[in-house]
């Protein structure tokens, strides 16, 4: 590998090639991250609107209520159809345009090649194509709000027959999903190939940072899970455009009118195809987060991860199992006891590897001299929050308990605990942690803590009451938040608590946004390895040039050699040659090889 002329070649490239149609994994990673953060914010805003309707059903939304027009909020009062659009699009956007693009497209792209000592991804142009497919998907989804009848309104799960007969927005949703699926497939192929082929010399599989493992397994989930949803999407498009009845049963009557369709289809078929992707997808949401937390925890406890190997094997087992639990979302479809028992059993089994990984991370804290910086606070918060999310999943996995809990706010509470205070806090940890690598500057610790504490508290304020409401039987997707139901009355006041918490959470994000931009210019300048970390990305200059490394890095040992007895510093990087030598940041990657 030649180590010449990095700085010169990219100076010649035009602005467009450098920042817009770049093939550099770091630029693409940042494009993904920014796009995803914008969509996360947008998707969150949709929910903020819904929370008004839930807290104050049918009361006009003050000040901005009039902006949405007669078709959506006449006189500032939200129409049920519009509520449904907001809900469906909130879920779709948060999952497919927010968390996954940030966790996989953003962090995966930026960090993985650096962590394995590669000059770039294996297929740089495919990488660019995958970002632009996501972008087109995002634009399509956004545009669907403005077509006649508004955006998709059959939930992020798009269950037929409702979705088959919904207005045009659903067609646009399907087209948008096809773009997003293409994007993910291209990305997945690229990640797996990159990790297998472009590993630095000496970087054997058991020397991978846990984050690389997490992305590796995630890529397989995307690669094998998405095509069935693609098939389902094509079927649904056919149903909507070509008059087929893949998902329409015979004799369907809508609003008293028999509908004109051949029938003979099966709505349950959609559910199978959808959950065959969407269950692995929940691990796509969580595994990169676990990867980030593992990196941050090892770095800030200054200790090797406890049980690294069992974590890796758990991860592989979990990835495999995640393909055979999908029908636990379908216990009430009347699928029979044999099937229920099977999926109930596999669901209980898949909890084991999750518990192992979480336990290893918690035990890793034991006896560490913990540095409580901002990334670490977010990573630490992830542990109990993911714990609550996972534990609340167990009753859902038991068919009998799920009959009561299915379709209630309990389910919403469960998965938000995993995805929001779980994954999203971990993603913040990752942003604070790798920001210095991307920019050469640290984010402000003060603003970081101001961001962390209220976020942590408000998130629980939003999601804990959901579990309580759900246990009382309050159903999800009710546009009045249960106000019309007698059994919801004792827990109705919680709607206000949740709404205020959500709005508070939104305000808190101002600290993050200010910090993000302020630190770009004013943040404390850092060395190449400000956290005194051991993995290979920290041997590259900050920000790394095109081609990443000054000379080809090499891995000499495992990823987390912290506090090695006899070593002069408390960290012994993967990339520094001799154990006896003093590991100096930045220069340590220089090897004669």
């Amino acid at each position, binding site marked *: 590998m030649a180590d010449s002329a990095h700085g010169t070649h990219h100076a010649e490239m035009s602005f467009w090639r450098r920042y817009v149609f770049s093939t550099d994994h770091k630029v693409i990673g940042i494009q993904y991250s920014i796009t995803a953060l914008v969509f996360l914010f947008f998707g969150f805003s949709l929910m903020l609107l819904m929370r008004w309707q839930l807290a104050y059903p049918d009361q006009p939304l003050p000040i901005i209520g009039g902006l949405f027009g007669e078709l959506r909020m006449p006189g500032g009062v939200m129409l049920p159809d519009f509520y449904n659009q907001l809900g469906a699009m909130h879920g779709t956007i948060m999952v497919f345009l927010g968390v996954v693009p940030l966790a996989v497209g953003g962090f995966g792209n930026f960090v993985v090649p650096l962590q394995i000592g590669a000059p770039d991804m*294996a297929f740089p142009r495919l990488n660019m194509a995958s970002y632009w497919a996501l972008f087109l998907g995002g634009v399509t989804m956004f545009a669907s709000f403005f077509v006649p009848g508004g955006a998709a309104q059959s939930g992020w799960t798009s269950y037929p027959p409702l979705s088959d007969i919904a207005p045009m927005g659903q067609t646009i949703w399907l087209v948008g999903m096809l773009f997003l699926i293409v994007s993910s497939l291209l990305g997945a192929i690229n990640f797996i190939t990159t990790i297998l082929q472009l590993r630095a010399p000496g970087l054997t599989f058991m020397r991978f940072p846990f984050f690389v493992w997490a992305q590796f397994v995630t890529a397989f989930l995307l690669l094998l899970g998405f095509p069935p949803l693609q098939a389902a999407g094509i079927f649904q498009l056919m149903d909507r455009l*070509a008059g087929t009845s893949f998902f329409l049963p015979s004799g369907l009557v809508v609003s008293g009118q028999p509908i004109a369709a051949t029938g003979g289809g099966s709505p349950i078929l959609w559910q199978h195809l959808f959950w065959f992707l969407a269950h692995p997808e929940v691990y796509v949401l969580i595994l990169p987060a676990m990867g980030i937390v593992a990196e941050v925890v090892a770095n800030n406890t200054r200790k090797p991860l406890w049980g690294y190997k069992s974590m890796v094997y758990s991860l592989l087992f979990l990835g495999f199992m995640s393909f055979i639990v999908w029908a636990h979302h379908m216990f009430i479809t009347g699928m029979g006891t044999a099937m229920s028992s099977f999926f109930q059993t596999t669901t209980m089994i898949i909890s084991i590897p999750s518990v192992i990984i979480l336990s290893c991370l918690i035990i890793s804290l034991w006896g560490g001299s913990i540095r409580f910086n901002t990334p670490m606070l977010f990573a630490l918060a992830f542990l109990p929050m993911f714990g609550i999310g996972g534990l609340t999943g167990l009753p859902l996995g038991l068919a009998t308990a799920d009959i009561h809990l299915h379709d209630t706010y309990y389910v919403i509470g469960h998965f938000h605990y995993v995805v929001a205070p779980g994954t999203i806090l971990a993603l913040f940890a990752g942003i604070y942690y790798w920001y210095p690598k991307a920019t050469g500057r640290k984010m402000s610790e003060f603003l970081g803590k101001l961001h962390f504490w209220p976020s942590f508290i408000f998130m629980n304020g939003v999601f804990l009451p959901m579990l309580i409401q759900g246990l009382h039987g309050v159903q999800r997707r009710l546009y009045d938040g249960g106000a019309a139901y007698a059994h919801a009355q004792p827990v109705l006041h919680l709607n206000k608590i949740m709404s205020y918490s959500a709005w508070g959470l939104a305000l808190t994000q101002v600290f993050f946004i200010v910090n993000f931009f302020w630190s770009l210019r004013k943040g404390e300048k850092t060395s190449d390895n400000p956290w005194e970390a051991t993995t290979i990305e920290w041997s590259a200059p900050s920000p790394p040039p095109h081609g990443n490394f000054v000379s080809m890095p090499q891995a000499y040992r495992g990823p987390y050699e912290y506090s090695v007895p006899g070593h002069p510093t408390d960290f012994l990087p993967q990339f520094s040659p001799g154990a006896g030598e003093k590991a100096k940041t930045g220069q340590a990657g220089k090897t004669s090889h």
Partner: protein
Amino acid sequence: MEIPYTVSERPDTGLNNVKIGIWLFLASEIMLFGALFASYILLRVGATKWPDGSSILSVPMAFTNTMVLISSSVTMVMAWASLMEKKLGRYRLFMGLTIVLGLAFLVIKFFEYRAKFHHGLHPSTSTFMALYFTLTGLHAAHVAGGIGINAYLWGPGLKLWERAPQQFTNRVETAGLFWHFVDLVWIFLFPVLYLL
């Protein structure tokens, strides 16, 4: 800066990047068609009555098409083998044949579709027809894509041969793997839709 192993093999995996890439892509394709076939089974099992495919669809046409595609897989292998022997003329001949056979498949398919429409058989006619049109339509789209790739490698893409013969040969091999896969899907589709 150059990406390693784009052409040559990485010693410990024994593969180059493109080879891994195409196998992964094919894995996702297997999941796609696997889901389509699984849906077929689920819908058929749930149906109260199911037509006899051979009485609606044209078995002779489909059989001809099966032969056409199998032959095209053979010519595709010959094209690649010719490149391995550095015989460019033969390569162009066999690749040309592969393209022509692919087009022949699509033409026959077109007449088949037209006959169905003439008889008033549309995707909306029945679940069986819906599956027939969707599955064969998706397959035909794959054939068309394959023809596009092959045509590129027959024409403008050939420039790479001068500069990097090994890389070009790899590309043809990759295109071949995709083409064989498309062939294989048809070999499943034919009996499932027309005979069973």
